[in-house]
């Protein structure tokens, strides 16, 4: 087994993958285990960034860029805004629900076990991947030729979402 691991790590790509994966998982675990809410958001941002790096490894540069922009940027800031507008104390006090947490732990581990088992036993014969010269241009070509309808729908959805958010969070005129 260790021979496999060493051989795996001899490839540079794999080392990069390993590092990014470690950061991502680390960020997620820290998010779970920090007590202060702001720390949690920070750790989450760290995870987002690591994922962006993984996307670059997967030759999806545009997606990586968008990930950084939207997630590590907008979503994290939105979360912090939410914390700012709703918080009464700084701490995330632990709820005392031992049974719930134990069952949840078992469930999660079980789910992971099932997924892991499925992944290991599945046989994905990879095909040939032609990424093209410029990822952004390729993606642009695809969006505006083949997937233009979903694109338009997406714009409608975003409009509705932001109008809805404003209406929901509007302060009532007293």
């Amino acid at each position, binding site marked *: 087994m260790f021979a496999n691991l060493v051989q795996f790590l001899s490839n540079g790509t794999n080392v990069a993958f390993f590092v990014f994966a470690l950061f991502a998982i680390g960020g997620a675990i820290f998010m779970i285990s920090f007590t202060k809410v702001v720390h949690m958001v920070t750790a989450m941002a760290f995870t987002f960034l690591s994922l962006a790096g993984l996307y670059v490894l997967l030759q999806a540069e545009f997606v990586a860029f968008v990930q950084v922009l939207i997630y590590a940027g907008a979503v994290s800031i939105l979360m912090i805004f939410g914390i700012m507008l709703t918080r009464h104390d700084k701490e995330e006090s632990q709820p005392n629900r031992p049974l*719930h947490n134990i*069952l*949840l732990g078992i*469930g*999660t581990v*079980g*789910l992971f076990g*099932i997924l892991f088992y499925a992944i290991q036993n599945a046989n994905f014969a990879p095909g040939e991947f032609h990424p093209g010269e410029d990822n952004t241009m390729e993606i642009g070509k695809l969006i505006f030729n083949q997937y233009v309808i979903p694109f338009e729908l997406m714009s409608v959805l975003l409009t509705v979402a932001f109008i809805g958010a404003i209406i929901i969070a509007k302060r009532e005129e007293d």
Partner: protein
Amino acid sequence: MVSAYSQYAWLIPLFPLLAFLILIAIGKQLKAFGVYVSVVCTLVSFVLSVLVFIERLGGNMEGYTWNQFKWLQLGDVNLYMGFEINNLNALMLIIVTLVSLLVNIYSKGYMDGDDRISVFFAYVSLFTFSMLGLVISENLLMLYIFWELVGVCSFLLIGFWFRKPEAKAAAKKAFIVTRIGDVGLFIAMLLLFWYIPGHALDFASIHNAVADQQIPGHIVTWIAILIFVGAVGKSGQFPLHTWLPDAMEGPTPISALIHAATMVAAGVYLVARMYDIFLASPEALAVVAAIGGFTAIFAATIGIVQNDIKRILAYSTVSQLGYMMMALGIGAYAAGIFHLFTHAFFKALLFLGAGSVIHAVNTQDIREMGGLGGKMKVTAWTFAIGALALSGIVPFSGFWSKDAILTEAFHHNQLLFWVGLIAAFFTAFYMSRLFFLVFSGKQRSEYEAHESPVSMTFPLIVLAVLAAVSGFLFTPFNGWFGSWLTGRTVTEEASAIVMILSTLAGLAGIGLGWLMYGKRSVSAEAVSGRFPQLHTLLYRKYYIDELYDFVFVKPLKKIGRVCHAVDVYLIDGIVRLLTGAGLSLGKFAIRIQNGQVQSYGLIMLLGLLILAVALAGRRFI
């Protein structure tokens, strides 16, 4: 001509049944009119029985049988229901319907004013129906069904005044003790069913099977003894006699109808009906005779010291039934049935007379009565006739029937003859004691006595006439009854010794009773004062009730308590456990329903896992 009326004999039990149904349905609204419903229906049955009887007098020995109603089919065994009329049946029909009719008329006067009177008449009609059905049954299974039904009616009627705890206890005792006998009859029935080829239970098949000797000898003895056990229960022979005296808690007309004339005669009737089986087994006959003879003298000795007027008569009934069984046991079939016939009349007369006395003075203790002869002339005269008949004084019916039995005993079994003679002496003694204490002498307590109404005295007079003259049907000079009943010419051997001895015994008993209680020249304490323990032993009925209580009743009650404890703690405990489990499961599950999304999400996750494992996990099993 043979079957002109016999084929309608199935109607005879149906009229009282109709009366029962009517009275149960609308008795409350009818109130006193319900009496007439019952009387009319019984009258119709009586008329039909007379017609059937007259037809049977024709002398044709062939019975009429109809058994076409297929009641039950078990595989290849068919059970039929039907009815049968032969000479014995026809005689029993007369006895039952006549006594029932007279008791119905009598009860109109006796139970007048009781607020449950229509229920009473309903039960009496039901009893009449059951007894008639029993008598004309064509097969043993049907007889058993009516046998049980008669027991139920007896239970209902003994416990008629159910607010009295003694009545309730007596009713239970009667039913349970007779039930013990019924088990014997049932086992006999099972044995017969097993051994008779074709699994038929009708009396003709039984007769054929025994005649052809298709049942092994020892089995026949067992069957006969078990049938006799059933008769012992129903007819109150030793050792199952304890219920009959206690049954006197019921109204007096009931004691007359059921416990003197008819139901207790059912045991004798059963033995007579199955006589073929008994004849095939001399051991069984010996058992029957022995128990009958023992019971006769045993009950008579208890009767001489009792103070309750009805109890004396009850023990007298037990004793006379012992005579009948003894007669059947020694082979005197005609004599036994004849005694049944005469006994029905004079015992019913005596009970109804006692009821008349009780109705007048409101007490049943003869020590508190006295001097009623002057004020209740009809009752006194009819009672005297009945007492003389019972004591076996010529020319009343009891003399002829008892004499027939004693003559047969004299020729076949000397021991039983002397037993019967001594019992006759005691019988005469306690009857005269009873008569003199109640009707003669001075009034011993405060009461205003007057004669009973016509509805009560009319049956007394009819029965008195019958008690006087019915004896002439079967005398040593006229063997008609015996020939008619058995189909063989039966000449009763006239034995002068027996006649003289029995008359002497009767007169001695009456004389002693008169001396002690009528003229008071011999002290009543002469014997009892010198042997007080003997007196107590007899008064307490040989402590048999106490013995039964100690041996059977108390252990059974203990077992009952144990079972009750098991029921309460074990069975109920299991039930409570289950309900508790259900409840706690519910209480536990309530905690899941707390309205929080995260709990629901958790449950969804767990459900998803279970589903995934269930669907895809088969490959690992």
